C-alpha cells in the first residue's frame, strides 16, 4: 500500500516537472554545497602552470531551455579568497604588485547577453570588473547536465572558460615573460533552481 502511494506520488511529481521547468528559470549557484569553482591557470615563466582558485563567491544564473537568449549570470567574487596553495605567493598576488585586494577586494561579472551556438552550447557575454577595471568579455559555455537531484531540488550545471589579458585589467606583467601576460579563467557552476 505504502509502495503504491509512493509510486503514485513519484508519477505525479514527474508529470509536474515540465510545467515547473518552463516557469522557473532562476538558479542560485550552489556555493554552499561547494559544487561551484572559479579557477585560473597562468604560466610560470613558460615552464609550467600555476593553478589557483577563488574560494569565496556568490551568484545567480538564469537558464530557461525554452528561452535561451534570456540566459544570464551574475557573480560577485571575494578576490581576497584567492589561493594557489602557497601562502606567500598568494599574499604577493594579492598585494599592490598585482591584484591590490586592499583597494579592490571584489570582482564582479554581469552578463549582457547570450548567444546559443549549438546543442547545449553558447557564448555568454558580459562585463568583468577586476582590479577596478571593467572589460567586456565573452565566454563559451556548455550545459553539462540538468535534472532532479536526490534531495528534492532541480539542478543544472555549466562550465566555461576564457582568456584574460592581464594588462586589460591594469595589472602590469611587463617584468615577466610573454607567456605570463594572460591567464585562462575556468568556471563550473551547479545551479539550484529557485
Amino acid at each position, binding site marked *: 500500500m505504502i509502495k503504491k502511494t509512493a509510486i503514485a506520488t513519484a508519477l505525479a511529481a514527474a508529470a509536474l516537472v515540465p510545467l515547473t521547468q518552463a516557469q522557473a528559470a532562476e538558479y542560485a549557484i550552489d556555493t554552499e554545497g561547494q559544487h561551484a569553482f572559479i579557477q585560473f591557470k597562468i604560466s610560470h615563466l613558460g615552464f609550467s602552470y600555476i593553478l589557483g582558485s577563488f574560494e569565496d563567491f556568490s551568484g545567480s544564473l538564469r537558464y530557461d531551455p525554452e528561452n535561451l537568449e534570456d540566459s544570464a549570470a551574475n557573480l560577485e567574487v571575494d578576490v*581576497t579568497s584567492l589561493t594557489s596553495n602557497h601562502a606567500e605567493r*598568494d599574499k604577493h598576488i594579492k598585494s599592490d604588485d598585482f591584484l591590490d585586494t586592499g583597494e579592490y577586494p571584489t570582482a564582479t561579472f554581469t552578463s549582457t547577453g547570450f548567444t546559443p551556438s549549438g546543442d547545449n552550447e553558447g557564448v555568454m557575454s558580459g562585463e568583468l570588473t577586476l582590479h577596478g577595471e571593467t572589460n567586456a568579455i565573452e565566454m563559451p559555455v556548455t550545459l553539462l547536465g540538468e535534472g532532479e537531484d536526490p534531495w528534492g531540488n532541480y539542478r543544472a550545471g555549466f562550465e566555461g572558460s576564457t582568456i584574460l589579458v592581464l594588462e586589460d585589467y591594469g595589472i602590469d606583467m611587463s617584468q615577466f615573460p610573454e607567456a605570463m601576460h594572460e591567464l585562462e579563467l575556468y568556471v563550473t557552476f551547479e545551479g539550484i533552481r529557485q
Partner: protein
Amino acid sequence: MWKNTRHGWGLASILLHWLGALAIIGLFALGWWMTGLDYYDRWYNLGPWWHRSVGMLLLLATLVRLGWRFVQPTPEAKGHRLERVAAHLGHLGLYVSMLVVLVSGYLISTAEGQGIDVFDAFEVPALISGLSNQATLAGQVHWYSALALILLSVGHALAALKHHWVDRNDVLTRMVDPRRSRRP
C-alpha cells in the same frame, strides 16, 4: 655566572639579549631588502628562506628568554621614579612587539597550512591557518610591529647610552659583563 641576581645579568640572559639584538637587526634589514627584490634576483627565494629560518629560531629563543626572565631575578632598575616607570613600559613594549612580529611572521607563511622549513633541518608545523585573508593581514601586522620594535630598540639603545655616559651607572655594563651579577 649563568644566573641573574638583583645586581646584574647572568651569562644566559646576556647571550639571549645580544643574540636577539643581532637577529632582530639582521632580520629587519634582510626583510626590508628582500621584499624589494626583483623576481629574477638570485636572492628572491633564498632571502625569505634565511628570513624564515632565522625568524623561527629567534621565536624559539625568545620563548626561552621570556621563560628565563620569569623564573630568574631581574636586576633592579635605576634612575628617577619616572625613568624607572618608562624603562619598565619600554621593556614591556619590546617584549610585546618581539612576540607580535615573530608570531605574525609565522602566520604569514603558515596561512595556507604549510609548515615553515628551518635551514632544511626541521619543519615548524602550521598551527593556525585558513583565517580569512590571513597572510595579507598578518603581513600588515608583521610590518608595523617590526617598525615599532626597531623604534623601541633605538630608544632602548639611547637610554642605555644615557645611563652609561650621563648617569655613569652600570646599567649597560651589567648587560655585557656577567661578573657584575656576583657582586653583593
